[in-house]
């Protein structure tokens, strides 16, 4: 049992550093078990250092920096132990334009091996997707959907007008 956890932690840790370095353009991050002798006695700590900064416990990071660390953790688990589909609801809320684009770029690559369904209001994100589903609601409070498949690289004009201006 202990062996299993140590193996999983090492496996994910390798990916985690790589993914975070790519998402943050050069930062470093790694996982540490609080108690290596008896991992079930302690927890799992995340250390991350955005480019140009000192290593921090993740609590001191900004809103957007925390989201990037969380994303890197999710993606590194996916690389180690893939799930058939992912459902991500407005994960790009905190991100500036550049980081939102980086995350969407990485999801678009990961979507070659798993199904990714994401909810977003950001144009930078919608531009990267293969398909777009528009949700609307009428004046009686009933939702409806419009579907656009295989949009490829979306042209600006294609994105439904209710998205982010």
């Amino acid at each position: 049992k202990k062996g299993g956890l140590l193996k999983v932690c090492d496996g994910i840790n390798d990916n985690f550093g790589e993914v975070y370095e790519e998402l943050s353009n050069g930062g470093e991050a790694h996982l540490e078990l609080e108690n290596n002798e008896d991992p079930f006695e302690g927890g799992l700590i995340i250390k991350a250092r955005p480019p140009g900064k000192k290593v921090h416990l993740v609590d001191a990071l900004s809103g957007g920096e925390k989201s990037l660390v969380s994303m890197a953790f999710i993606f590194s688990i996916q690389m180690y132990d893939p799930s058939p589909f992912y459902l991500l609801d407005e994960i790009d809320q905190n991100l500036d334009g550049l980081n939102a684009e980086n995350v969407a770029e990485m999801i678009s690559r990961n979507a070659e091996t798993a199904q990714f369904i994401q909810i977003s209001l950001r144009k930078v994100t919608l531009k990267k997707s293969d398909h777009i589903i528009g949700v609307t609601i009428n004046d009686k409070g009933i939702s409806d959907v419009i579907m656009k498949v295989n949009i490829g690289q979306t042209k600006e004009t294609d994105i439904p007008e209710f998205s982010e201006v």
Partner: protein
Amino acid sequence: MHLEKVRMENFKSFGKEMEIPFKEGYTNITGPNGSGKSNIVDAILFVLGPKSSKEIRASRLTDLIYNGGKNGSPADHCKISLVFENEDRTIPLDEDKVTFTRKVQLSDNQQGYNSYFFVNGRRSTLYEFQDLLAHGRISPDGYNIVQQGDISRIVEMGPTERRRILDEIS
């Protein structure tokens, strides 16, 4: 294996019968505030059976039934079906498509409703759902479903809760 369709009937703001097709690859869902985007996530979690109804923003299961909106009349049941393509037999059933259906019907019994589970049309239970889906590494508490506002949760949760994510994988 991938999620092929979500069929909704009187679930939250989806006050009619409708079907949302999903393709493989990268799909984005967008739309105005309050239009029903997160309700689609709640519909998927409703079938996968989360541990607590808090996770689908409802204090009682009957809050999930379409309430009629401003002028309409409330429905008496809600029903959601998730259709998975299963050609690779990840889900241990000898079928190309596997449909998980959950229905909540208002009733005058003590708890006020009845809850039904179906797999490809035959009666089932929540346990069978979770058992079949576990083979596909699909669990309602998995890290692969991130609800709105939750993205920083992985960083903000305590070290022990975070280690538990790894326990589940090993």
